[in-house]
Each structure stands twice: as C-alpha cells, then as structure tokens.
C-alpha cells in the first residue's frame, strides 16, 4: 500500500467519507499558523509572498522568457496535498470539473457552496484571511461573486484547447488564458484577484482541474516541444525543477474520475 499511486478524484464523485476527510484536512490546516498551515500555503501564491508564475516572463536568465505556469502550480499543489496528508493520511485533492452542468452540478459544487456542514462552519466555503503586512492589511473572510453557470467553460471549450494546441507553448497559453483565467473571473470575489485567490478554498480544486488537463494532454502529446532549457529551472520556493514535475506518477498520483476501495477478505 505504501507505494500505491494516490488517485485524485472528481469533486462530483466524492463519497461521504472522502468529503469528510477532505473537510477535516482543510479544517486542521486552517487551524495551523506555521508553515504547515493553510494560510502559509495561500500566502505563497499572492500576498504576502507572491511566488506564483503566470504567463510569460523572464526566468533566471533575463533574456529568456519562460512559461512556468503549469509546472509551478503542479509543484504548488503537490506540496499542499502532502501537507493535507500530514493532517489526514490518505486524503487527496479532488478536481472541480467546471464543464459539468445541472443536474450533475450547478456552478460551484455543493461541498464548497454550503456555508455550514454538519452543523459547523464549512471550511470549504470560506477562509478568514489575516495578512497584516498587506497594504492595505487584510483581515476578513474570503467571498465569491459567481457568474451564471452557462458562462463557465464547456466540454467543447476544453476539447478546443486540448485538440488544437500540440506544442507546449501554445497549449499552456491556451489552457491558462482561455480556461484557467476565465474560471477565476467567473468565481470572482477573492478568487478573481491573483493577490488573494489562493485563500479561497475552491482555488485548489480549480487548479487540480487545470493540472489534470495538462496531465491528459501529456498522455496524448508527451511534453510537446517543451524547451530543453526549461528543464533545470527551479520552481522556487519549492525544491523541484521543471523536469521533476513532468511525470505525475513519479510524484505519486494520478487522475481518475472516482475510486472505490474493494475490501479483501472472507465474506
């Protein structure tokens, strides 16, 4: 079991036990103020630390523009998920399939949209930010202002990005600009602002979907013509280089729609 590949499932397919484990992991991380906690991870993306990579910018060599959006966020999610598993062994990060429509799902999945769960505040609904060093300082709970469900990307939009961009550069531009950015704006509120988006609990499942689409694209296209000089770029502040995050199985996970454990033993 120890060497098993963990399966990231769709939010819409989680059973009650998986939802409970997911909630507990967030709840425990949100109660920790040190570098194992939710706020610490959220603060790596935007305020106060601003490590995130989006779009094109120069890397350590100023005349070489690189597109590290996908590898950087894969390393980010990996570290976040491992911190979740420190709190609740066996839990995995689920992906939010924004292409689903009613009755299967209506915009924000129910496990994230309900203010309460089991008679308590739902840790997947909101997180109380406290960033005294931001200017102006932040001390309030995250909020959302979602648009109409039919403005979310459709499966046809996903197919267009996946099918019409066979090289890495055009794929990452399309995935980021046409799907990822669109969903951040659709959720709106704090999710619509780079500086605070990662404090919203739905951020991680949104990015899990983005990472899943990259993984599927990799199965179909390999790594495209990913520039070789990108491979040894370090994805700061993490210790991974780009080459370390290209194979999700090496990182110990895979994407499924759902996972059902079958008990072995006498009936």
């Amino acid at each position: 079991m120890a060497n098993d590949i963990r399966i990231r499932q769709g939010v819409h397919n989680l059973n009650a036990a998986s939802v409970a484990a997911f909630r507990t992991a967030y709840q425990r991380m949100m109660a920790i103020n040190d570098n194992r906690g939710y706020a610490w991870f959220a603060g790596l993306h935007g305020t106060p630390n601003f490590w995130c990579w989006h779009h094109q910018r120069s890397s350590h060599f100023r005349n070489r523009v690189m597109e590290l959006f996908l590898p950087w966020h894969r390393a980010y999610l990996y570290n976040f998920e491992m911190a979740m598993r420190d709190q609740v062994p066996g839990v995995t990060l689920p992906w939010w399939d924004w292409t689903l429509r009613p009755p299967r799902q209506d915009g924000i999945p129910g496990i994230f949209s309900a203010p309460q769960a089991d008679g308590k505040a739902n840790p997947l609904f909101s997180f109380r930010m406290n960033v005294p060093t931001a200017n102006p300082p932040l001390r309030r709970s995250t909020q959302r202002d979602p648009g109409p469900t039919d403005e979310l990307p459709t499966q046809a939009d996903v197919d267009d990005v996946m099918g019409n961009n066979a090289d890495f550069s055009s794929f990452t531009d399309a995935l980021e600009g046409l799907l990822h950015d669109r969903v951040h704006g659709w959720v709106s509120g704090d999710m619509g602002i780079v500086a605070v988006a990662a404090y919203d609990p739905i951020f991680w499942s949104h990015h899990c979907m983005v990472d899943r689409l990259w993984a599927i694209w990799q199965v179909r296209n390999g790594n495209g013509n990913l520039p070789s000089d990108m491979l040894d770029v370090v994805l700061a502040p993490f210790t991974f280089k780009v080459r370390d995050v290209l194979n999700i199985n090496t990182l110990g996970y895979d994407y499924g729609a759902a996972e059902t454990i079958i008990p072995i033993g006498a009936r």
Partner: protein
Amino acid sequence: MARKARTSASPKPAGRKSATRKTAAAEAPAGLPPAKRGGTGRIYTSPPVKVDFATPGHRANRIDLELDGLYHGEASFEGRVFLNNTRANAGTPRTMDKGYAGSFYVFGHGGCLGDPGHCEVRDHDREFHDYRSGHMLTPRKTRINVTTTLQAIARETTEVTVTIVPVITAANELCDQRNVLRFEGMRFISYNP
C-alpha cells in the same frame, strides 16, 4: 518569568475585559473589501486593416489575433473581440452576425497590495548580471482564434476593424477599472495547411 509576573499582578476581571476587546478587534473585518463583478472598461477600436490573407484564395486554415504587452495588474476581465462592429458594447450579443470573434480572459493582480513600488515592472533597467526572475507583472501576450468570423467577413470586404470590449469580472477598490485594457501591440497571424 516576566510574562508570569505580569499575569499574576493583573487583576483577573480587567485581564478578561482587555482580552475580550482584543478578540473583538481581531474578529472585525478590516482592510480591502472583496472584489465584485460588473462594469466595463474603456472600449478599444483599431484603425481599419487589410485582411486579404483571410479571403478564400489564401486557403488559411487558422487565423489568430495576438495581443502583445497585455497588462494584467488591475481587475480581471473578459475581452470580447468584435470585428467590423465599432458600436459593440457589453450588451452586444456574442454572435457571429454581430462580428463577435471570440474572447480572451485576464486574471488580474487586483491592484497593488504591496508597499510603494511593489508593482512597478522595471525589467528594462535590470543589471546585466541580475539573474533573478522577471517581475510577476511583466506584460503578457494572448491569442484568440478568430478564423470563422474573419473569413466570413473577408468574403464581403478586405478591411476590418478590431473592437475589444473589456467586461469586468472581478475588481476591488484598488483597480483602475476604466483603463483595465492596456496593451502594446496587436496582429493577425494566419496559417496554411
């Protein structure tokens, strides 16, 4: 030791009262209110350009509109691209008969939450041996596939204007919403089979 001495010296009720006040202050929302959707930034319309490359004889199988030097430091928005519809606005239907060719999306930084200078991109004057990563607000580029609409228009005329309507999806009070759409260049790129 000092902490213990202070605690024991303080009468209990006063200590409780001040703790309550402190907790209430810590609980009160403060600082920047959350971003909201709504509104439109300044609409851009280009001068007319020749698009002979989109006529049937040129056999283009894909035509992209590329925006270069696109700023992403303000609000998040959807940039709706209309061809030959200079009157397009946020209420214009996104249909081909209205010249709608596609949208691009910007996930905005949300104004500056740092101290003065934090969001100033100064890549132009970096030292030769400055090996740090570029600024996170380095302007980006983006592409929109406009093939279908442009080829339909090119059957009737060989001149096209590009109108971009920035519809704001998330803006906080730090954002300059009117000037949310800022870019340095724009071009069509066509491809053949």
